[in-house]
């Protein structure tokens, strides 16, 4: 039998029998969420994700929340396996409660949450048992400055003005970067418009997307996630494709 460092006992008691378990090399995500997009402006951070939980190619759960308000300074968005994201949401919810009962009005800020996620995700990847997610952390630090971070299932973590996961990193990120380069002083409302444009293109091009999404904002004044909304689409060019006949 192959002895591994993972838990699993064939004996009854903890020290009985051999400590053996099937070696986990491959995992697969089951119910998944697609792109999460984020833009950090001087006014605040805007984050967006659609409300779809795909079951492979089936658009199975069309009203799930992929954005979570952790506390007044942080909203996170989850890409990848939804069950793993729910697990992380549960742990984060408890952290917020733990901050609340101290009673001093101080809660973990976005960089702290980002770093905690990085620790957890990297640790799991090192044990060959990853949480199959890419998380976007949108928020502000204790000083009130906007913060936007990215962490993925292999523990890669960084901070950037614009982030996107999955398909979004191929299609939306170039659009977002161009918008930021042309208008570096854009505000929250302009950023929301950019994201809506990106989400429309993603709906055209990403087969695992849904035209129903939420936009979250963390700024000095508000930290909230919108009600689900849709983008106007124009499929008329689809009537006359050329070169695919």
């Amino acid at each position, binding site marked *: 039998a192959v002895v591994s460092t993972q838990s699993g006992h064939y004996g009854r008691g903890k020290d009985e029998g051999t400590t053996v378990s099937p070696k986990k090399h491959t995992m697969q995500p089951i119910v998944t969420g697609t792109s999460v997009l984020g833009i950090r402006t001087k006014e605040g951070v805007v984050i967006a994700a659609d409300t779809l939980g795909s079951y492979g190619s089936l658009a199975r759960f069309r009203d799930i929340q992929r954005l979570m308000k952790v506390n007044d300074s942080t909203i996170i968005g989850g890409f990848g396996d939804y069950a793993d994201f729910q697990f992380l949401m549960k742990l984060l919810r*408890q952290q917020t*409660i733990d901050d609340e*009962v101290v009673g001093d009005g101080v809660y973990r800020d976005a960089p702290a949450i980002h770093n905690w996620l990085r620790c957890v995700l990297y640790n799991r990847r090192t044990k060959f048992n990853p949480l199959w997610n890419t998380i976007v952390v949108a928020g502000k630090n204790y000083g009130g400055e906007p913060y936007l971070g990215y962490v993925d299932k292999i523990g890669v973590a960084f901070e950037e003005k614009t982030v996107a996961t999955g398909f979004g990193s191929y299609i939306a990120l170039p659009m977002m970067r161009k918008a930021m380069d042309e208008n570096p002083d854009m505000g929250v409302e302009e950023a929301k418009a950019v994201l809506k444009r990106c989400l429309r293109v993603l709906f055209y091009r990403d087969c695992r997307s849904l035209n129903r999404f939420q936009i979250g904002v963390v700024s000095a004044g508000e930290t909230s996630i919108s009600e689900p909304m849709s983008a106007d689409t124009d499929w008329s060019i689809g009537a006359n494709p050329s070169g695919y006949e």
Partner: protein
Amino acid sequence: SDLSSGINAEWPLRPGVENSGSVIAVRGSDGVVFGVEKIITSQLYEQGNNRRVQSVDDHIGGAVAGMLSDARAIVARAREEATDYRDVYQVPIPLKMLCERLGHYVHLYTVYGGLRPFGVSILLGSWDELNGAKLMEIDPSGSARGYYGCAVGKGKQNAKTEIEKLDMTKLTCRELIKEVAKIIYSVHDEVKDKHFELELSWIGKDTGGKHQIVPKDLYDEAVKYAEEALNDSDDEDNVM
């Protein structure tokens, strides 16, 4: 005292709970209000420190009377129970379930000779849309009882008398904050314990079911009401 005689929870009541500053809690029509007479033994203490009202999870408030270090241990345990319940059932722990678990835990310390009972009484309250306001007390023997109005500590007898005069079920939290402040001020013994700090907290419809310290403006209003009531009663004594 004889700790080997099993349930002997009288001992911790004497030095612990009964000599502690008064703690009262009242269950109104839309929530629960806690008031604590925090006796200040030294002017060197930082104001607002050593809080006697604590939150367990975010939807349950607790006020403690007795040995503060024992109180910390009980509140820590209550928080663990709440966390565990939430982990398993994905809903916040109902007050009744928390008090069952906590009562069980406190009782445990009364049946073994090697352990001493907790010298603490804890008043716990919650409010939600579905079940309304709930208030319970756990005493050092581990028994958990539900109340409409409850008082523990030094001025318990007088406080209970005052509480009984209130028609609690008809009063809202906003009104009760003032009444609770008034009762604490009236049972406070100016001669024996010179300085005290009034701690007020509430949980109810106005707080969206979250346990919070009463905001400054309402707190100041309540203290003013309490001080005026005290002056009025002093005047009455003089008239006689």
